[in-house]
Every structure is written in C-alpha cells, then in structure tokens.
C-alpha cells in the first residue's frame, strides 16, 4: 500500500515537472510557437497571415498564431488575458495607449534585445520611435505610422471652379474654399458641405490646428491641459465659425445621418484623416486626392501616430517573440504592409519605394511621408484614454450645436485636468 502511494506521488510529480518543463523559456533555436494578437479587419488578417507565413519560411523553428479582433473587443480581450496573466506573446499597441500598459509592468523591456541588434532601427523613421521610448528603454516597436492629411473631392472642386488645395494653403484658404464648395439646395438646406472632420478625438483635426495656431495640447509633465489657452482658442473659434456661421462643416448630428463620414458619403468636399481611410475611399465613385495640412500663423503642423507591437512580460518565448518583431521591421514584411494600404511603412526604404508610392489607389502618396517634417507626436501618457474622453465627451455638445463654445471648453478643460490629477 505504502509503495503504491509512493509510486503515485512519483508519477504525479513527474507529470507536474513535465508541465513545468514545457513552460521553461525556449532557447532561440528550439522550436517555439508564439501567439500574436492584433486589431484589424479581414483584409488585414489576410496580409498578416502572409507575413507570418513568410516569417515561418525564414525561421522554420518559429510558428506564429495570429488572432485578429475589431478595435473595441481587442482591448477588452487583451485586458482580460493580461489580468489572467496569460497574455499573447506578441500583441499590437496603439502608441497613445502604450504607457497605460508599460507603466503597469505588463510589457517586456526590449532594450536588451535592441542593444544586441544595434542596426535594427537604423532605417526606421525616428518620429515613429519616440512614442515607445521610456527612461529604461523601449518596451515596444512601431510597425506602421499615420500622418493626417487633407483629402479632397476633385469632382466637387472642378464643379465649383475652385483650385485644388496646395502645400501653401492656410486655414483661411481652407475656410474660403469650404465656403465656396458649400451648396444650399432649393429647400434652404445644405446639400453639399465644403469640409468635414470629426472633432471628438484630437487626431483628425484639432490637435493639428492648435499646433498650427501656435498653441499646444498638454504640458510636458502631463499635469495641465492647454487647449483653452488663447492661441488654441483661435483654432476652436475657426471650427465653430465654419460650422455655425458659414455652415460649410456639418455638425455631428448631421454627420451621423451620413453614416458618420460625409466625405465618404459624397456630401463633403474635403476632410482630414489618415491613411487608414484610403482603402475605404478607394471604393467611392468620385475622383479624390490628398494634400498636406494647411498652415496656421505658427506654421504647418500635422499629427503622427504609430501602431506597433509589444511583448507580454510573462511570455514563455520572448526570444522568438522578438525575432518576430524584428521580422516585422524587415523589408519583405514592410512591403506587404505597404501594399495592404492601411498605413505608411515605418521603414524608410520601403516607404520611399514603389511598393508604397505606386499603390493601386492612385493618389499622391508622398504627401503622407512629406508631412513627417512638420508632424507632432500625438501625446502619450498614462491615463490618456480617460483624459481624452473627458475632452471629447465634454465638447461633444458644442459640435452637436447644443451648447456655447467658450464656457463648455472651459468646463471640459477643468474635467480633463481633474482626470490628470487623479491619475498622478
């Protein structure tokens, strides 16, 4: 009887150690399977499956399992997995949210790997790397980036006899052109708007305009919101005048009736958005092109934001995970991303090659790259999501035409500063 018990204990401990053995970190040449999770749509999944297949060919010992969810469920799923301490080995990260994760210690510091691969980031646009830098190194690497540019409907410009936007346009030129492109129907309602952009998130228009007017978004140590300072107010006033005086910019209620994107719906002549909109806009039946963001009194400005990959701190195969991140920055992978057409490749040699510049959608792709010269980084700090929601929610009433600009702006800034104070 006693012997049997002993055997049982031994068998059990053998099983347990066998399990533990399976979890030991795999050396770089041992076969490893890593999981990779990202947000995206089916077209993106297809391309990533190709990239993963290419990677497997280059590194036959590493297998990558890709899982794609839509934006909202991606973050819910990710947080659940992280709280259960079973995160995917590699997962996608949006730069503004990066510090919310990095500061909570769930990401692997990639600096030791980067130190061993000093040439890895040589050809990468430096503007896309800044977001991932922390005092103790980089915890993530960019895969592609977005600059915001001006999209315009050529057919509408031709019909109104207005000259296409140029790189020298100012915000006043934008306002004038938008006014000329606005068409009021016989029933007194606007049937065509000169301009539309969404004002909830800063990325599409308001951060760019505030920078161009010489203002700023938030102070350097992220304790004070600056969007109600005098220079920033000029930008807000411009939007407000275009929307409610010129009526060349539909308010949010009207925009919602056109599916949230009046430019795509063919009722707005211009919009400002990033490269992610290109595949969708490629389906429309009007001619369009892109131009750089307009200039303000303080010069030209746009926003640059990148999506990247990070490695979970508890990853069982960090070496294999880093190999994959390395591969994402390689020429073949970046080429595939360029051809996908949702974003700009971070590798300069690929961005400036025909893979990106001569895509199936025939527009001036170079505008997206040239905009980097005057691009500001979208703010990155812990608590970004709650802070930006305080501003977006707080000001939504203005753009629905329900409340006054000035007092609402002051209130939104107060709410945003309270969020900053509570996230100290």
């Amino acid at each position: 009887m006693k012997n049997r018990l002993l055997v049982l204990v031994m068998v059990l401990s053998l099983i347990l150690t066998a399990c533990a053995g399976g979890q030991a970190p795999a050396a770089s040449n041992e076969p490893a399977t890593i999981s990779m999770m990202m947000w995206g749509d089916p077209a993106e999944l297809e391309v990533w499956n190709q990239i993963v297949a290419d990677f497997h060919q280059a590194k036959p010992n590493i297998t990558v399992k890709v899982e794609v969810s839509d934006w909202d469920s991606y973050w819910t799923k990710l947080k659940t997995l992280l709280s259960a301490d079973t995160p995917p080995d590699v997962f996608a990260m949006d730069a503004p949210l990066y510090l919310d994760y990095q500061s909570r210690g769930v990401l692997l510091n990639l600096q030791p790997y980067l130190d061993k691969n000093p040439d890895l980031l040589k050809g990468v646009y430096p503007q896309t790397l800044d977001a991932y830098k922390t005092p103790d190194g980089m915890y993530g690497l960019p895969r592609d980036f977005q600059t915001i540019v001006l999209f315009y409907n050529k057919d509408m410009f031709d019909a109104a006899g207005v000259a296409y936007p140029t790189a020298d346009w100012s915000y006043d030129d934008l306002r004038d052109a938008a006014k000329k492109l606005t068409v009021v129907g016989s029933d007194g309602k606007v049937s065509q708007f000169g301009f539309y952009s969404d004002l909830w998130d800063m990325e599409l228009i308001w951060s760019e305009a505030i920078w161009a007017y010489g203002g700023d978004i938030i102070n350097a140590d992220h304790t004070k919101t600056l969007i109600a300072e005098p220079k920033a107010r000029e930008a807000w006033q411009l939007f407000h005048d275009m929307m409610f005086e010129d009526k060349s910019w539909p308010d949010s209620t009207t925009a919602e009736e056109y599916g949230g994107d009046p430019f795509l719906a063919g009722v707005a002549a211009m919009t400002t958005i990033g490269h992610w909109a290109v595949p969708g806009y490629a389906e429309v039946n009007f001619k369009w092109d892109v131009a750089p963001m307009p200039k303000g009194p303080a010069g030209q400005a746009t926003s640059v934001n990148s999506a990247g990959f990070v490695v979970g701190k508890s990853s069982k195969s960090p070496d294999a995970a880093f190999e994959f991140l390395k591969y994402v920055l390689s020429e073949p992978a970046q080429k595939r991303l360029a051809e996908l057409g949702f974003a700009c490749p971070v590798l300069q040699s690929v961005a400036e090659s025909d893979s990106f510049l001569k895509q199936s959608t025939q527009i001036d792709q170079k505008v997206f790259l040239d905009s980097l010269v005057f691009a500001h980084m979208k703010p990155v700090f812990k608590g970004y999501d709650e802070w930006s929601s305080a501003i977006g929610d707080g000001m939504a009433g203005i753009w629905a035409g329900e409340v006054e600009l000035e007092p609402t702006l002051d209130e939104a800034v107060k709410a945003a500063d309270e969020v900053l104070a509570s996230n100290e």
Partner: protein
Amino acid sequence: MEYGLKPLGREKFWLWALLTPTLIGLLFGALGSVVATVLLSFAKWDLLTPPTWAGIANYIDLFKDQKVLLSLTNTIKFTAMYVPGVVVISLLIAVLMNRKVRGVGLFRTAYFLPAVTSAVATALVWHMIYGRDTGILNFILERLGMQPVCWLCTENAMYAVVIVNIWGAIGEGMIIFLAGLTAIPREYHEAAAIDGANRFDQFFRITVPLITPSIFFQTLISTINAFQAYDYIYMLTRRPGGDSSIPVVVFSIYRNAWNFFNYGGASAQAIELTVIVALLMAFYFWLERRYVVYE
C-alpha cells in the same frame, strides 16, 4: 403567497437532482462573480496590477463623480418612463390580440417581431425614422406644415430612446399578458355581461384584477430590463469612445472598467445598481402581498 404544487417523497429527490447542474453553475458562476464584485468594490484595481484596499473611497466617488451621477439620473428617468410604458401598452395590445379578429396571428407575429430581430439592425431603421434632416418622421411633420424636430439631440434623445425600447419590449410583454388573459374563464365575462357590465367595467373589474399576477411579473421583468438597457440606447445615441449623449449606468460601468482602468469604481457602481434594483423588488413584493390576486 403559495405557488403551485408541493413536491412529495421521491419527487423531492428528483427535484434536487435535476436542479443540481443549474445550482452548481449559479453557485460558481453567478455567486462567485457577485462575491468578487463586492470585494473589488472596496479596492482600487486597474486589472493589470494587483488590487489594493481602498475602503469606501469608490462608494464616496459614486456621489462625487459628476459623470456617474448623470448616468444614474439618466437610468432612473429611463426606468420611470419605460416600465409603465411597457406594462400599459403591452397589456392593451394583449387585450386587443386576445379577441377573435381575422389575421390575429399575423398581428401577434408583427408585435413580437422586434423581440427576435437584432437590436442593432432595428436601431439603424429607427435612425432613418428619427434623422433630423433626412428622417421619415420630420419629412411627415414638414409635409403637415410643422417644424422639424431634432429627435436624437440631447434634449429629446431620452424620449426617442424610451419609445424605441418600449416598442422593442411590447412583444414579450404581450406574450406574458396573453397567457394571463387566456387563463381567465370565459364565464366571468359572460356572467358580468348578463349583469349589465359594459366592456370598460369588465376590463377594470374582471380582467385587470385577474391578471395582477402577470402585471406584477411584467413590472418586475421590465424594471430589471430597464436598469440593464443598453443596445438601442447605444445604437441611437452613441458618441465616439463609448460615450452617449444620454449615458445610462451600464455605459458608465463599462467605460470605467474597460476604458479607464477603474474596476473598483465600476464594481461599486454595479453594487449600487444591484442595491437599487433589490430595493425596488422589495417594494414590488410588498405591493404584491397587498394587491395581487391569486386564484
């Protein structure tokens, strides 16, 4: 209150045997998460780092945070309009559907259809009805020479959304009431008619008292549904970032937990909601003892 039959002898064994799987699920699934939520409501937790004890700080925030207060006010307003609306309208429709009318099956199906249709799809159709510049409702108003109304602007959105939610709930309410109505013996109405009671008297003195159990049940269910209402509200009033022009508590809980890394605060809100619903239920059961008639 006495319901149905009492199990006897061997039946008791089978009763528990058959209930066991459900009870195990409830015990470990529902009860486990209830206990976890209660504990978390006293903690500061961002889901990624270990929770720390926060005392009643999350509960104090419930009364301080303007957005949380706004969402609670919205939920209460919504419930106050939705529950009576669902109960009264679905009762009236059930009474109409209980008559021998040609094609009554078709009508019943039509009223029940919203209950089995995707809320997202129907909300899109409601968008077409409510739209300010392109909506069908304003088109009709303008044809009649009236001023168009911005149905989904913040000032009107609550009413617009309550109407859609009531419309979506009528079908299920109708089924509950139809079941209650068919259980009323015909003789009662016939006897009353012979005694000279008109239809109006018959409805209020016979039908309503006899279906008080259904009214009680439907009020209870509608109240719970009202506190959890989300899909139509989201589809009709959403703003970017998970916001709404009339955010209800469910919105607030979700955003606090999943967007703002504040699981403790979200748990406290969930407990608050549970306590409110529990108090309402206690009130309903008190009313039930006084007014509900069981044959």
